[in-house]
């Protein structure tokens, strides 16, 4: 440790109470920032998992025009593609879907819905629909025309188990088709808007009504590992040049946007916290400079140049700032680890609101290891910026005037 660092270190302990208060505030501020990052990371991770594991899967394949138009005539061959995909390395599961948009009508009103025709066994591996059933049983085969609807839609349309609904849509020949279905199960996911607009039928029944035969509209794929996403999507594009291959990021761009912007928001919040703390640090250091005016004047008189004086003040500020950081890191790590194991229930902040945005109420914060470098840079920048004004104040002292204080 150089003489300047030794002096700086001892200087910050000249007023222990003041230094400890500022260190504690830095530790608390940093803890708050890390906790926010961890909370966001946990929420976003859960959101991404919901999108992949419960909604879209990792990759989807469609007819090139289907996603733009959703006309039932834009189909792809079922068995050919599905079997090929299932044999690809890295693929955990794949399911075929028939999809159309239509109108759900009951005695109390009507609502626009996305209608999915699924194979119940295959769908379990993709969207885990069976795990989301809150009432009824997952495609009870005793019922002739079963339909599974979301809780949000059931509440809105006042539907219960065994309620009858009529679905209206156009088939491949643009003919209006209407058919009655009976509610066999009500599901509830973490995404209320999704629950409100998505209903599930048996694929064979919907194919029959749409006149698509064995053709399907959508192939949803789940991979073993998220890291294989881009490589597998590229392989599929090469295998099926006539189909549109999209990853979950393209299927759910709002989620991808959320992932990328949340990091930025987190950093902005952290910067604001540190900026507020910087005022405290600046104030503390200015007080310290004021108290040591005579001493600083003497140092300059003896021959301490401006660079060294600047470094002395800067070291003090950096020590003051950085000392709170390990405490913040350790405390936030322990706090986050606890809630990562037990979950943090945010339902008290608005259960419905969380669901409206597709978030789970129980969040498992994750320690933001990937952002530690950024955190360190923000803290270091805070320390340096906070040291500038006091250092400049010290540099501007005239030795003869300072010595008279």
């Amino acid at each position, binding site marked *: 440790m*150089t*003489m300047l660092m*030794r*002096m700086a270190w*001892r*200087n910050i*302990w*000249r007023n222990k109470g003041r230094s400890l208060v500022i260190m504690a505030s830095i530790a608390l501020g940093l803890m708050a920032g890390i906790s926010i990052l961890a909370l966001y990371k946990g929420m976003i991770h859960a959101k991404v998992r919901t999108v992949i594991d419960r909604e879209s899967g990792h990759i989807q394949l469609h007819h090139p025009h289907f996603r733009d138009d959703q006309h039932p005539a834009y189909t792809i061959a079922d068995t050919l593609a599905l079997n090929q995909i299932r044999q690809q390395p890295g693929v955990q599961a794949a399911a075929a879907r028939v999809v159309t948009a239509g109108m759900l009508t009951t005695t109390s009103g009507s609502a626009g819905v996305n209608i999915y025709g699924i194979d119940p066994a295959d769908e379990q591996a993709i969207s885990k629909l069976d795990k989301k059933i809150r009432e009824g049983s997952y495609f009870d085969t005793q019922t002739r025309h079963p339909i599974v609807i979301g809780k949000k839609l059931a509440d809105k349309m006042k539907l219960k188990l065994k309620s009858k609904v009529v679905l209206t849509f156009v088939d491949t020949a643009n003919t209006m088709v209407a058919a009655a279905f009976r509610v066999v199960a009500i599901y509830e996911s973490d995404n209320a808007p999704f629950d409100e607009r998505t209903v599930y039928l048996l694929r064979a029944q919907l194919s029959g009504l749409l006149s698509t035969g064995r053709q399907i509209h959508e192939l949803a794929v789940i991979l073993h590992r998220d890291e294989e996403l881009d490589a597998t999507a590229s392989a599929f594009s090469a295998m099926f040049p006539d189909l549109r291959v999209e990853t979950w990021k393209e299927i759910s761009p709002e989620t991808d946007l959320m992932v990328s912007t949340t990091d930025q928001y987190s950093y902005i919040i952290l910067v604001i916290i540190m900026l507020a703390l910087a005022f405290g640090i600046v104030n503390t250091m200015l007080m310290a400079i004021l108290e040591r005016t*005579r*001493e600083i004047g*003497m*140092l*300059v*008189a*003896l*021959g*301490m*140049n*401006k660079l*060294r004086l600047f470094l002395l003040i800067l070291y003090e500020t950096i020590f003051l700032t950085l000392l709170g950081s390990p405490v913040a890191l350790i405390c936030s790590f322990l706090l986050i680890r606890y809630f990562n194991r037990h979950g943090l229930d945010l339902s008290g902040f608005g259960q419905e609101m969380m669901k409206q945005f597709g978030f789970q109420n129980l969040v498992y914060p994750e320690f933001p290891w990937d952002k530690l470098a950024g955190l360190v840079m923000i803290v270091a920048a805070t320390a340096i910026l906070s040291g500038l004004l006091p250092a400049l104040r010290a540099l501007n002292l005239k*030795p*003869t005037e300072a*010595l008279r204080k």
Partner: protein
Amino acid sequence: MNGKTVIDAHNISKVYNRETIPVYAVNNVHVHLERGEFTALVGPSGSGKTTLLNLIGGLDRADSGEILVNGIDITKLSGSKLIDFRLHNIGFVFQSFNLIPVLTARENVELIMHLQRMPRAARDQRVKQLFDEIQLSDKLNSRPAELSGGQQQRVAVARALASKPQFVLADEPTANLDSKSAANLLDIMLRLNQEEQITFLFSTHDQRVIERARRVITLVDGKITSDTAPVKVTST
């Protein structure tokens, strides 16, 4: 004295309130000091002693005149060069000691050598030599708060000498000391002056100090009113 000029200041003036009612703190003063002098600067309060010391020490800028230290006109030096010049050429002893409270006695003295980037071995040797001279070898690791006023001022003298300066400027070095400590400090300063030919210029009101000076410059209202010839000191 060996006749080598250390300080040669000509026509130096320092004026305050130049725009309103000018006050001459130092008025057209000439000071010539040779190596090995032990000179007291005396005069009533407000006579300009501290201002003159500050000008000669490069702590303040003269409004006119030139101050040559070893032939270098310090009034022409830039701020940073002046700081560097002070570090290598001038030692300071202040009235209220002004030791760094967070550093030990040894570190206070070493600080100057650190600033000079002196190698560790040379620093250690110099520290030992200086603390032997000020007779505080047993207080090396004491903080200033653990030392008496006299001891602190002796450490301040050691600090002033650490850089092996051309001369030492001392502003009322005995003002805050009791008579015994003041006498002790003077003994040390005189011994360093005689044995190592270190030039001392100090302001003082203390008659005991004035009596032991070999030359006395009297300043009144910013002007030198008398400058006694150097006298040989026979005992310390």
